[in-house]
């Protein structure tokens, strides 16, 4: 099977180049990662990230024939030859298919992706009704592979400011968590014009998500919540004025 793989070692190469490989697959080679491991056996200078090899860790996210995806759950039989592999776009390349995801995780951290609850810690767990728990479905499954964010043109053009689909979906995941108490702060945190509103519904994120999630829908729901928050804020201000008047 033929492959054309992006190669770049900043210590040695002046600029990136594409290297061709033509390998014989083994009987058990079904996924792209199997082939990549076989290539690495032949050429151990090739760098890539991998770990769980079953679509859970999100390490081997890369650009496969022009579309972001996970090598470990991409079937070789469905790929057109030569298979063109590049690092995920929009992030600095460390080496070959390995990108620097610092900025991606900075945006992720900026939305406080953890439960904020100031109540005393209960003896057991913080309970949720089945209905409240169901609100997290389609959100918590994100594995932070970065495929969505790095295929988003709004992120390519505004990487410093736009949180990106993965970060925004996790922001929404905690906004709708019945145990969380920081909804207002979370919404305020996204008011700066470029953090949330740079999303123009291009939908690349939905197209590429290896877990079949829909960050775009989550972003739209955040906008709805922000609208509600602004309305609530006005009502609260009115109430305060009425109380003062009394």
């Amino acid at each position: 099977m033929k492959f054309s793989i992006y190669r770049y070692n900043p210590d040695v190469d002046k600029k990136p180049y594409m290297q061709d490989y033509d390998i014989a697959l083994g009987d058990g080679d079904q996924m792209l990662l199997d082939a990549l491991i076989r290539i690495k056996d032949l050429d151990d200078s090739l760098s890539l990230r991998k770990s769980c090899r079953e679509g859970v860790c999100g390490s081997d996210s890369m650009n496969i024939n022009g579309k972001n995806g996970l090598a470990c759950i991409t079937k070789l039989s469905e790929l057109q030859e030569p298979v063109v592999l590049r690092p995920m776009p929009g992030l600095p390349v460390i080496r070959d298919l390995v990108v620097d995801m610092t900025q991606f995780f900075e945006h992720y951290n900026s939305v406080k992706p953890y439960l904020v609850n100031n109540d005393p810690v209960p003896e057991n767990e913080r309970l949720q009704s089945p209905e409240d728990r169901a609100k997290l479905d389609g959100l918590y499954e994100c594995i932070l592979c970065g495929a969505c964010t790095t295929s988003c043109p709004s992120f390519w053009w505004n990487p410093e400011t736009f949180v990106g689909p993965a970060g925004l979906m996790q922001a929404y995941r905690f906004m709708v968590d019945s145990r969380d108490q920081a909804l207002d702060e979370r919404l305020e945190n996204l008011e700066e014009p470029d953090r949330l509103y740079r999303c123009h519904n291009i939908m690349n994120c939905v197209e590429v998500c290896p877990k079949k999630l829909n960050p775009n829908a989550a972003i739209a729901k955040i906008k709805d919540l922000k609208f509600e928050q602004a309305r609530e804020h006005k009502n609260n201000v009115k109430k305060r004025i009425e109380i003062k008047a009394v």
Partner: protein
Amino acid sequence: MVIDLLTKRYPGMRAWLMQRLTAFAMAAYSIMLLVRIIILQPAVYEEWLSFFQPIWFRIASWLFWICLSVHAWLGVRDVFKDYVPDYDIRVVLLKLLATLLWAYIAWASWLFLVR
């Protein structure tokens, strides 16, 4: 309530909402324009002139132009933000755009309200 959302307290929401409100207003005007054309069927210059004669229609057309200008400003500003990474060049382009849009508004004001 919507007016409150268009204040500086909500800079992100303001532009987003403004773009949608102006789009809605322009869509409403376009439908009204189409219906009016179908009903009155202006064909020659004099008929077009009387088509634009009623003051309410002139004001509506002027408001449409204002909405179009705001919508264009927000949209093109986003495009410049995406595709013109150099800040200085972007500022020059935005100033040119603003000048152009204000000139169009002045022209539309003369056309619909003064003339």
